[in-house]
């Protein structure tokens, strides 16, 4: 499989690494602008309220304050903040500023002042009289008759059923699951719950806006989606797209949280109101409840299997909340169905989902995009079924997993905002992932090791699988522009947004490989809506396969032009020439060559031609990367603490363009998933206010918490990807949580169906289990179920 590449497939250092390790000013906020004003947003203290009166006069009178904006001062344009391709499948239910607030943290007003202290003081001086409305905080009661209606405004569009707070509803079936359950010998149905969690990019959201000398609005922003942001801001501020210029500098992490037009509109409005540069940067606290989060879900999964373990029917029913606004509501939840259920071949599949509004912080895109929730439920249930059948969970999976040659029809029925396209599985390394991962965690030995019943420390191992996509089929597209300079360097200009993923490096590797030049000959620039061509942005695991596809095509075009000129210079037909080692050489034995540097100078000053090309690229299919992940845990039965000892990730990513970076992507995803499993949750009080908006109380995994990590790249050759690549940015975030939950079950015999699994929950469950066991041994033991089942929590 492995071909001889010189740049692709190598763990080269990041092309943008030097500036990062030396702390050069590269990020959004790393500029000093004369006359910069500080923007601040007044957050709503109420979960649901009408603004009856708002008086900004005392704030406006404050020295240093240049603008105070309320809903009375700005255009009312329904829109979505979801950074998606036009027409966005998310409802248009959001306004720049509104007379109604829908969650604690919703925008009430915005100010711009000379200093941060003045801006903060101005917020305190805005007088607001609210008519407080009953809030809808519990998603399980959002559709109740009589529940307050969160979106009762007449001008929002695209809401499935606003009067019942339903943002989106999805129902898809393949075969007939009821028939499938009748065919099954064993049916198990369980309910699982996943928490509201936050991306926690270390760089918070930050935008800086100003008017350039031509009075165009310039937006310098930490965004994954510069082009969508340009289009959305233009619409919201009622400017022609032509008058908006978005610059994406270095991004300090995104994870989907920045696939959102979040601050750019209000920051731009303040610049238009003042004529001055304005910066808005969220504080860490604001970042927690005024940015975006992962949709919490309640999932009921029912699976029917034959006696031999063959799955015949799989039915998943989901209730999710999108919070106060429907950003990514239908598409995240659509993914919960379309990317999760098809992991297993089942003739009968059904996915049903309600996404409801609540007066809670807004959910949005977050790495995994609906899959972490779905895989936690499905993989936990699969472990439960394998346990009930007395089958090894790896064998159970091997029997049922999708494989190369299969066609996933659920994806065809569940596209993003429209009918999708069937997924043809052209490459699948999942069986090898299972085998190599099992060997790395020592599954055979550790799975059978007896517990030391005297010790309070119990060990267990667990496994889970997942898949993702590589871009949204038929929707995501990208372009690239490439030109040759007279010193044989190349400018590669891409709209793709490296947000720490290593995209700039991977795209440069693809270009260098195609051009037969060293990596350091590439100068990558990304991204700027004035200077780089269109790209949907960095999301849906699309950059390597889609932007990389565009780069490869552009590089092939440039190579062809290079060969044409070399042909004249060497008097050899182009088909006898090839680019290699920074030169053009003959393929035949005559051994003629010209260096790329001589050729570049010749082309520019003798031929008088700019060697350059551009290309666009999209796919009509989304090849899934696959992952098998294994956890070994140690549970302290005295404190309830779960310590993850070892986490193995075996991932089929197609070909790794840069193995070192690919490992880093997988490992970062694992860290986030372990937090999801064990510690992270945005906790809201009874009024809808987040009680833990800081890193002391919202616990993410640090170097001290992380287990030993083993990352195995299982390379396959994907025909649709550049140099055989698929994707690796998201897939590894899906399975660690269910693998940990299953490992905990195998350690202490308690099945947790709600995340995060905190020590107090472990202790409570162990006490209940003990009480049941004592009860059982005291009473007639008889035909009661085994202890693990009675320890169920839901």
């Amino acid at each position, binding site marked *: 499989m492995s071909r001889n590449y010189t740049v692709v497939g190598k763990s080269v250092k990041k092309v943008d690494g030097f500036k990062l390790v030396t702390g050069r000013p590269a990020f959004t906020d790393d500029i000093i602008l004369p006359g910069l004003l500080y923007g601040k947003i007044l957050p709503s203290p109420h979960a649901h309220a009408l603004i009856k009166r708002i008086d900004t006069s005392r704030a406006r009178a404050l020295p240093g304050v240049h603008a105070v904006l309320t809903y009375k001062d700005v255009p009312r344009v329904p829109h979505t903040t979801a950074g998606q391709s036009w027409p966005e499948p998310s409802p248009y239910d959001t306004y720049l500023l509104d007379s109604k607030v829908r969650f604690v943290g919703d925008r009430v007003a915005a100010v711009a002042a000379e200093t941060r202290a003045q801006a903060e003081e101005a917020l305190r001086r805005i007088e607001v009289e609210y008519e407080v409305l009953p809030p809808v905080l519990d998603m399980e009661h959002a559709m109740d008759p009589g529940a307050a209606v969160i979106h009762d405004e007449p001008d929002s569009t695209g809401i499935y059923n606003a009067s019942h707070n339903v943002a989106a509803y999805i129902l898809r079936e393949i075969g007939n699951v009821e028939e499938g359950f009748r065919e099954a010998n064993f049916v198990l149905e369980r309910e699982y719950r996943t928490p509201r969690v936050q991306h926690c990019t270390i760089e918070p959201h930050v935008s800086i806006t100003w008017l350039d000398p031509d009075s165009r609005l310039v937006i310098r922003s930490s965004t994954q989606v510069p082009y969508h942001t340009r289009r959305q801001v233009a619409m919201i501020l009622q400017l022609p797209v032509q008058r908006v210029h978005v610059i994406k500098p270095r991004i300090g992490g995104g994870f989907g949280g920045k696939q959102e037009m979040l601050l750019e509109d209000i920051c731009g409005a303040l610049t238009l109101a003042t004529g001055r540069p304005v910066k808005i940067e969220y504080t*860490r606290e604001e970042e927690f409840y005024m940015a975006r989060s992962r949709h919490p879900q309640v999932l009921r999964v029912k699976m029917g299997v034959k006696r031999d373990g063959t799955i015949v029917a799989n039915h998943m029913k989901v209730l999710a909340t999108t919070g106060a606004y429907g950003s990514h509501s239908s598409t995240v939840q659509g993914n919960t169905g379309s990317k999760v259920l098809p992991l297993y071949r089942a003739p009968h599949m059904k996915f049903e989902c309600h996404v409801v509004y609540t007066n809670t912080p807004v959910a949005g895109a977050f790495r995994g995009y609906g899959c972490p929730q779905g895989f936690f439920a499905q993989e936990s249930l699969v472990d439960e079924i394998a346990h009930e059948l007395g089958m090894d969970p790896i064998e159970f999976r091997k029997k049922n997993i999708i494989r190369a040659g299969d066609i996933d029809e659920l994806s065809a029925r569940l596209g993003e905002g429209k009918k999708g396209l069937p997924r043809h599985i052209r490459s699948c390394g999942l069986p090898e992932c299972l085998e190599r991962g099992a060997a790395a965690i020592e599954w055979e030995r550790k799975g059978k090791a007896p517990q030391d019943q005297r010790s309070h420390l119990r060990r267990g191992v667990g496994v889970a699988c997942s898949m993702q996509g590589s871009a949204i089929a038929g929707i995501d597209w990208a372009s690239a522009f490439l030109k040759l300079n007279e010193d044989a360097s190349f400018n590669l200009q891409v709209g793709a947004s490296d947000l720490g*993923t290593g995209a700039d490096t991977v795209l440069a590797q693809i270009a260098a490989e195609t051009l037969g030049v060293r990596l350091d000959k590439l100068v990558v620039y990304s991204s700027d809506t004035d200077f780089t061509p269109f790209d949907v942005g960095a999301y849906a695991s699309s950059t390597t396969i889609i932007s990389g596809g565009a780069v490869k095509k552009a590089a092939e075009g440039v190579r062809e032009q290079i060969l044409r000129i070399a042909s004249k210079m060497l008097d050899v037909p182009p088909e006898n020439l090839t680019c290699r080692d920074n030169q053009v050489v003959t393929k035949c034995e005559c051994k003629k060559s010209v260096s790329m540097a001589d050729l570049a100078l010749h082309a520019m000053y003798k031929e008088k031609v700019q060697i350059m090309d551009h290309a666009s690229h999209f796919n009509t299919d989304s090849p899934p990367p696959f992952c098998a992940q294994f956890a070994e845990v140690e549970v302290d039965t005295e404190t309830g603490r779960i310590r993850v000892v070892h986490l193995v990730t075996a991932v089929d990513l197609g070909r790794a363009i840069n193995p070192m970076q690919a490992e*880093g992507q997988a490992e970062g995803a694992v860290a986030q998933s372990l937090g999801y499993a064990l510690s992270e949750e945005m906790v809201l009080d009874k009024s809808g206010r987040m009680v833990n908006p800081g890193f002391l109380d919202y616990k993410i995994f640090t170097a001290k918490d992380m287990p030993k990590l083993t990352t195995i790249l299982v390379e396959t050759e994907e025909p649709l990807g550049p140099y055989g690549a698929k994707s690796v940015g998201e897939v590894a975030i899906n399975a660690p949580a269910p693998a940990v939950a299953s490992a905990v079950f195998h350690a202490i015999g308690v099945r947790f169906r709600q995340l995060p699994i905190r020590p107090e929950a472990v202790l409570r469950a162990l006490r209940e289990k003990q009480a049941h066991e004592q009860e059982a041994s005291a009473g007639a033991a008889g035909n009661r179920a085994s202890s693990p089942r009675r320890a169920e929590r839901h």
Partner: protein
Amino acid sequence: MPAMKTMLTRVKINGEAKEWTIAPGDLLLDVLRREGYLGVKRGCETGECGACTVLVNGRAMNSCVLFAAQADGCELLTIEGVAQGDTLDPIQEAFLEHGAVQCGFCTPGMILNTKALLARHPDPTEEEVRDMLAGNYCRCTGFRKPIEAVLAAAQACRAKGGKKPSRATKGGAR
């Protein structure tokens, strides 16, 4: 608003003597960024994430929870002063070589914290490295590569300094 009181603070930063006019309540983080040391990052402003780490008299500290006035008379090192021109410090080299940099926002803090650790402890164990890096939140890497980078940097620094490692073998982060 009453007229802002100002004061003078003198520091030696990245080897250069500087005099800054500050307000008594100014935080060191804000003053450093205002003075152009933009490699000092703002991540939480509550002393939790470590993105604003600088060395104050050789000790790694969160500049977001220090008053600038507290730095008066101190020697400061920010990320801008770690490399010698275009020659990287072995720690910086190791971070690149081992893929320990992803988005790069937490990287300056990690590198400075590592610098302080290796200065007092040239041969740390993996556990000691984990303890140290626990003060630098990172959401990108999962920490395996930063831990490897720190251990490799320690080795490189020792080799450069001609010192023999006191503890020959270490667990490694894998």
